[in-house]
């Protein structure tokens, strides 16, 4: 142990090991902090004016737990903060971790909390200083930084905040405690009800934010499944100009009566058109605003298909490598203190950004386009200017590049675009020809290839000009159902309604998948999801009320600004929950039956692979032979004597419906995973063109 060979030192607590290593290296005079270990727990010794020991946490080391032990009872309203290994299975490592921190705290004379500067980071640091270091929360200082760059870390070490941010800690503790009380009581009520009725255990969960989020999804799913489309028609005219063909749209965007659409069609057939009016307008397209976490998650989903949680994890890695600033921010502002020029100069060392950064650096003044949202703790997400020290994997590279290009774009000029609208009269009926082009690229060039703007170039058109109308035609259309949420649009909805926090929303969405309340990328609510929400809406409407949840969020936020008391929020939250839990307990049997049946159906639903491509009406499903116990795929119409389709399945490993059809033949597919082998996708179609291609490829390889 190092402390035996050292005098008194400063002990710095960080949130994660990567951050500890980076902070220690930044503070060491030679830039090479010494890595030591105690029972497998790493910590770093840095030499500066005084010795510094930097020890990391592993995220939260303490959690809220009930005072009495046991998991199969409720209601539970008395709680305490305990080390995670006390409350959670599989958290044994935390015990040695805390022992090491306690040992290191003994010889420390000065304490600094250097966890991430937000609610979660503040609680992590506070709990360690209070419980593991022996009530050092009152004398500890606080390092505040938004990037893990050497310059910023040195500055925040030299000028730490004089004490911990206790209002932030109070707000965070309350949030954890309220969430725990709601989560543990409601989840246990559901799980125990189902278990006692069916005798089988299945984890069911809900919570203060999870319930209202599921409610958004169920409302949309109901609208989707009850949807009846209505017909309408669009009329288009194909016109020829300078040898090119363009499509003009009828003045009425949609016609809802077929006979009316036919009448227009007949009136225009075989007639030429005449240009009545040409309207040309120029407009500015403003640069985008900097990313907050939600905007980054949405953009990465739209461009790369990454789920919000994946983007959040990637951004966290980039932050820990000092490539970007702290990502869990809701700010859309970039203060000058981050030093725009230095960041751009550093980025110019990367060949792909050299030209663009050089262009920005010639501007007399760098002023970012900013959004309205502010975050007291951190600015919007920006690149630090550091270049990667290792080869980033493809997803990290994409997200980093997106953040760099967005950062450059916010300093660029507006784009100037031109729209052209020509009105063509065909036998008394007006058609519009629309064009759009970019006159000055401005920021669009900086944000390539992530720009989504379409160019439709039209030839020059003059008023009075006769136009050759090649044909006029009808397009049959139907109204579309409201789209199902995807993880990105759901996250946006949660943000708009003010439920959850930027740090928790992505995980809550993931929990809905983990609990099998939803499936697929376009989020389909399962039977189980419907039943859980039905139970909650019937017996405890308050806890799934979006209004109630967002009001509680607001009150918890107010603790942060000292305008609300933690005790009041906790007492009120418990008072609201108590009758709800009593009602759930009273109706335990009915709820248990409803949920058990839903779990049973959900387990069956999990085995459905997709529509049977042979009979077209049944569903292919994973079944088990009564004789041999072996699994295979069969059509559900077999039981009605309508379809005998069946296919063998591998007997080892796991087989899971993929939810996607084969890209070669459109048949449903499964994902097979066998230990020691690469997972693969299995298409059942014996005549699938992809199988033929693969066979040919293997033959070619063997011939070579």
């Amino acid at each position, binding site marked *: 142990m190092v402390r035996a060979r050292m005098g008194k030192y400063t002990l710095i607590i960080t949130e994660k090991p990567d951050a500890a290593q980076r902070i220690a290296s930044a503070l060491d005079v030679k830039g090479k902090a010494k890595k030591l270990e105690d029972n497998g727990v790493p910590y770093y010794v840095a030499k500066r004016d005084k010795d510094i020991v930097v020890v990391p946490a592993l995220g939260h080391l303490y959690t809220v737990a009930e005072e009495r032990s046991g998991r199969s009872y409720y209601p539970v309203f008395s709680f305490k903060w305990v080390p995670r290994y006390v409350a959670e299975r599989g958290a044994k490592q935390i015990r040695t971790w805390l022992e090491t921190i306690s040992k290191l705290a003994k010889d420390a004379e000065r304490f600094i909390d250097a966890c991430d500067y937000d609610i979660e980071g503040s609680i992590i640091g506070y709990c360690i200083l209070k419980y593991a270091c022996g009530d050092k929360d009152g004398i500890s200082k606080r390092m505040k930084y938004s990037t893990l760059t050497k310059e910023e870390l040195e500055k925040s070490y030299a000028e730490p905040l004089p004490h911990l941010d206790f209002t932030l800690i109070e707000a965070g503790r309350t949030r954890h405690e309220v969430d725990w009380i709601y989560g543990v009581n409601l989840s246990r009520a559901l799980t125990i009800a189902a278990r006692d009725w069916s005798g089988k255990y299945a984890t069911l969960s809900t919570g203060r934010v999870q319930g209202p989020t599921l409610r958004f999804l169920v409302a949309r799913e*109901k609208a989707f*499944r*009850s949807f*009846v489309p*209505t017909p309408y028609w669009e009329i288009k005219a194909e016109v020829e100009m300078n040898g090119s063909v363009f499509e003009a749209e009828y003045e009425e965007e949609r016609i*809802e*009566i077929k006979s009316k659409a036919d009448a227009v069609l007949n009136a225009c057939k075989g007639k030429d058109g005449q240009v009545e009016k040409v309207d040309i307008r120029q407009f500015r397209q403003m640069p985008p605003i900097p990313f907050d976490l939600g905007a980054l998650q949405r953009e990465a989903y739209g461009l790369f298909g990454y789920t919000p949680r994946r983007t959040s994890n990637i951004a966290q890695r980039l932050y820990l490598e000092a490539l970007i600033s702290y990502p869990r921010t809701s700010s859309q502002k970039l203060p000058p203190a981050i030093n725009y020029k230095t960041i751009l100069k550093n980025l110019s060392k990367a060949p792909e950004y050299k030209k663009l950064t050089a262009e920005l650096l010639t501007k007399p003044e760098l002023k970012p386009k900013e959004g309205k949202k502010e975050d007291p703790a951190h600015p919007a997400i920006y690149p630090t200017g550091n270049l990667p020290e290792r080869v980033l994997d493809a997803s990290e590279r994409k997200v980093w590049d997106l953040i760099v290009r967005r950062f450059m774009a916010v300093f660029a000029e507006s784009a100037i675009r031109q729209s052209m609208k020509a009105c063509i009269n065909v036998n008394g009926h007006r058609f519009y020809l629309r064009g759009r082009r970019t006159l000055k690229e401005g920021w669009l060039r900086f944000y390539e290839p992530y720009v989504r703007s379409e160019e439709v170039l039209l030839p020059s058109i003059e008023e009075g000009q006769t136009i050759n109308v090649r044909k006029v035609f009808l397009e049959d259309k139907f109204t579309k159902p409201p789209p199902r949420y995807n993880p990105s649009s759901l996250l946006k909805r949660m943000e708009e309604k003010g439920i959850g926090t930027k740090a928790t929303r992505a995980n809550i969405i993931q929990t809905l998948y983990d609990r099998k309340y939803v499936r697929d990328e376009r989020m389909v609510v399962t039977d189980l999801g419907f039943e859980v929400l039905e139970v909650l809406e019937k017996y405890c409407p308050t806890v799934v009320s979006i209004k109630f949840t967002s009001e509680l969020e607001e009150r918890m936020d107010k603790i942060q600004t000292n305008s609300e008391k933690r005790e009041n929020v906790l007492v009120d939250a418990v008072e609201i929950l108590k009758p709800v839990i009593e009602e759930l307990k009273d109706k335990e049997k009915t709820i248990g039956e409803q949920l058990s049946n839903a779990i049973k159906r959900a387990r069956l639903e999990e085995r459905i692979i997709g529509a049977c491509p042979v009979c077209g009406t049944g569903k292919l499903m994973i079944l088990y032979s009564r004789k041999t116990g072996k699994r295979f795929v069969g059509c559900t119409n077999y039981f009605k004597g309508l379809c005998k389709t069946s296919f063998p399945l591998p007997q080892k490993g796991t087989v899971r419906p993929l939810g996607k059809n084969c890209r070669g033949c459109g048949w449903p597919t499964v994902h097979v995973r066998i230990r020691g082998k690469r997972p693969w996708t299995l298409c059942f179609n014996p005549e699938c063109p992809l199988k033929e291609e693969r066979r040919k490829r293997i033959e070619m390889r063997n011939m070579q």
Partner: protein
Amino acid sequence: MKCVICNREDCENGYCELHRKAYESIVKKYEVWKKALEISWKEYLSEIIKNPLTGEWAKEVAEYLIESGEK
């Protein structure tokens, strides 16, 4: 009373809450279809069953209405 389509309890007019919503939607949208295409109730039901944009509960109700001949 159980839902004529899915056997769920708590029904009103033969439909559970979910299928009732779909039924109401079918009845409401018929007016639009009738005006648009001058089609009969039965033709309308066949059309919406065939349409891939029709929600699955609405399809189930439409199928039931055709089978039972109810309006």
